[in-house]
């Protein structure tokens, strides 16, 4: 109560000041609130979207175009057999709590991520590491058990940021890193404040402070933009509003691409979808453009397999199962369902899932499949669908870059156990030259499409909108991040 009165008293005194926003601070609206702030201990993209590149850094980083750039490692040498990586680290780097950064922290972080007790959500990234040595305070030698073409890219993921043993355990609530911004405060359900790290080892950030405000509801997001409460949304939750923003001279709209393959995931392990004919029938009944128009107001690119269209190795497989309701019904009859069947469609909260789900249910109804829509919150979805595999259909967007490897995993929620894809992914790991890699990636896409493992819908667009004058925000999202290091007001 006291807090309220004091705040009110101050509020009266400063009530006029609300209008002018200082132009060295940025208020960003984000849709999902992270469950905690340690990117090495959670799968939620929302964590990286606050912390990546801003507060915490890794050996390498991914830049706006998806290229690998040096970060804490200023240079590296790769042995000719591709098994030994020698990283030279920057010196004079301090963590936000004042402790020094050195090779011991790198060894600690990598061993922690790949260790037995690791809670790292992307343990696979570190699988190939055989040993990590820190021969001197600015040198780290990583030895791999087999050549891994994507190793440097992997070390640029948010799950591979370098943490300090002194602060690692508290990172969930107050993250300590080496980045150009320091974590200031987290008002639960409301916002996270960052301030510039004036002791940063590299080029200082231009912004003095930044705030991430959590606004998931499309109307509230619209209201916040119109009222100027936020300066922008890197990914605005209401695609239907983009037209209005485009017409408004105050704002700049940038529709980019993300690494999010939005798919209709199917339970390949049990139930009616175990049968490939049923899965193919569904594929023939999907009208992708209608889904994109209805759920995303036209923002999004159709995909035919689990690969991003903007990637050079992309193969257009959208025609693999052309829209053909008769063929779909025939396949269902062959599979033993001449009169249709009932399935459960469990949907997480995002509007691409809920709206997309409604549209798909209507499309499936045309071939006799009755999809019961069951809405779930993320926690329930993780428990029932992702972990419990208790579903027939679901819709989710996989936003990790180059993640077609999930189809080769032993246990994943699709419950798909194709042998061909495992071989291709293993070969890919061992191949370093670009041409060979691209050929193998093409092969992987075809296998996944041929087996109709999932219904491939569209690539999630990044609907960025911000006030004119804000410069430096990413147009695309090659990794899950809101990199503010180069952002400034014009």
């Amino acid at each position, binding site marked *: 109560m006291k807090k309220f009165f004091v705040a009110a008293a101050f509020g009266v005194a400063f009530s006029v000041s609300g209008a002018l926003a200082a132009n060295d601070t940025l208020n960003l609206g984000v849709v999902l609130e992270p*469950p905690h702030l340690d990117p090495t201990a959670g799968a939620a993209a929302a964590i990286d979207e606050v912390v990546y590149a801003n507060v915490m850094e890794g050996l390498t980083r991914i830049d706006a175009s998806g290229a690998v750039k040096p970060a804490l490692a200023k240079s590296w040498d790769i042995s000719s057999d591709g098994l030994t990586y020698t990283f030279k680290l920057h010196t004079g780097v301090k963590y936000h709590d004042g402790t020094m950064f050195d090779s011991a922290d790198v060894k600690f972080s990598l061993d922690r991520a790949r260790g037995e007790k690791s809670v790292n959500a992307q343990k696979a990234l570190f699988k190939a590491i055989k040993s990590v040595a820190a021969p001197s305070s600015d040198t780290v030698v990583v030895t791999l058990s087999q050549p891994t073409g994507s190793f440097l890219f992997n070390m640029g993921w948010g799950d591979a940021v370098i943490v300090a043993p002194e602060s690692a355990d508290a990172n969930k609530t107050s993250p300590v890193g080496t980045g150009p911004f320091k974590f200031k405060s987290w008002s*639960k359900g409301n916002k996270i404040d960052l301030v510039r790290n004036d002791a940063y080892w590299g080029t200082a950030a231009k912004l003095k402070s930044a705030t991430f405000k959590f*606004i998931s509801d499309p109307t509230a997001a619209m209201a*916040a933009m119109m009222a100027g409460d936020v300066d922008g949304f890197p990914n605005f939750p209401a695609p239907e509003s983009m037209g209005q923003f485009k017409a408004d001279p105050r704002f700049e709209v940038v529709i980019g691409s993300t690494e999010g393959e939005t798919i209709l995931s199917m339970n390949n392990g049990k139930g009616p979808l175990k049968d490939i004919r049923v899965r193919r029938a569904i594929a023939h009944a999907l009208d992708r453009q209608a889904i994109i128009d209805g759920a995303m107001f036209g923002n999004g690119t159709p995909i035919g397999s689990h690969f991003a269209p903007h990637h050079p190795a992309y193969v257009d497989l959208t025609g693999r199962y052309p829209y053909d309701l008769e063929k779909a019904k025939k396949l269902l009859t062959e599979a033993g369902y001449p009169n249709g069947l009932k399935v459960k469609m469990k949907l997480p909260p995002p509007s691409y899932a809920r709206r997309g789900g409604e549209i798909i249910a209507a499309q499936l109804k045309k071939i006799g499949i009755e999809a019961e829509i069951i809405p779930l919150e993320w926690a329930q979805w993780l428990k029932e669908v992702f972990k419990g595999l208790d579903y027939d259909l679901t819709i989710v967007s996989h936003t990790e870059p180059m993640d077609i490897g999930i189809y080769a995993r032993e246990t994943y929620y699709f419950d798909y156990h194709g042998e061909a894809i495992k071989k291709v992914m293993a070969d890919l790991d061992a191949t370093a030259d670009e041409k060979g890699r691209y050929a193998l990636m093409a092969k992987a896409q075809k296998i996944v499409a041929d087996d109709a493992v999932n219904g491939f819908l569209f690539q999630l667009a990044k609907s960025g909108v911000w006030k004119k004058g804000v410069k430096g925000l990413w147009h695309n999202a090659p990794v899950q991040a809101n990199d503010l290091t180069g952002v400034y007001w014009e």
Partner: protein
Amino acid sequence: MAIFFLRRALTLFATLVATSIIVFLVLEVIPGDPAAVMLGVNAQADTLAALRAEMGLDLPATERYFNWTLGLLQGDMGNSYTYGVPVSELVAERVVVSLPLALMAIVLSTVIAIPVGVLAAARHNKPTDLGVMGVSQIAVAIPNFWFAILLILLFAVKLQWFSAGGFAGWENGFWGALKSLLLPAVALALPQAAILARVTRSSVLEIMGEDYIRTARAKGLGKSSALWRHGVRNALIPVITIMGLQFSFLLAGTIIIENVFYLPGLGRLIFQAIAQRDLIVVKDLIVLLAGTVVVVNFIVDMLYAVLDPRLRGGGHG
């Protein structure tokens, strides 16, 4: 009088205890492991067990119940499963939105309803009265969340005088924050005002027919002063009772209205906590809200007894 007070106080206590037991039991039945919710999908079995022991989830039900209630009495509401911070912190952050909202709604509805009700009674069966009755009939039928949406359509979308939702925050200016609570308060106040106006009107009408009013008029007092001096004061008794009862509807209304306007208040917190299966927040908030309603009812009963001595004699349920 003292016995009456004691009896009511006992009922109050019993109701609170019963509420806490029932809430506890209902949420016991809900499946789901809070430790898994907190640690996430990839947690190991032994970490889960350790967290469960730390949260005291492996104790028998009765022990957990008493730990919880004793904690509540001392102001310790436990830690939220979703956020890991003390629930009391969450409540403190949210109450500075919900409380001003509720107060604004009460003030608005009272300020509108009582004079309108009295006016209608004074002009009984004349056009003003019929007009008031008609409007209040409609106002009661309108769902408050639809009224809220209409307000947003007119004042935020069309006229752009207000924002379409969200809370400006007290730290960004007192009037700004108050402004973001205005439309929600109006939406909340409308159905309450309608009901209050009708109750005021009928209560005043009843009083006006009473003997002592006739006596006052016989003594020469004009219609208006008779009304104000004797009628209104006594008419206020049932009005206050209704206001007290309305409090629980107000609370229910804030859940929906806070959702319509995306206000970070207690109502929205309960809704989000239920959705996220953050059972500890749910338990605490329900007991808190139900407790507030019970206490308010108790106060209203006391007020009622003070104002109307006829009631003090054997308390009724």
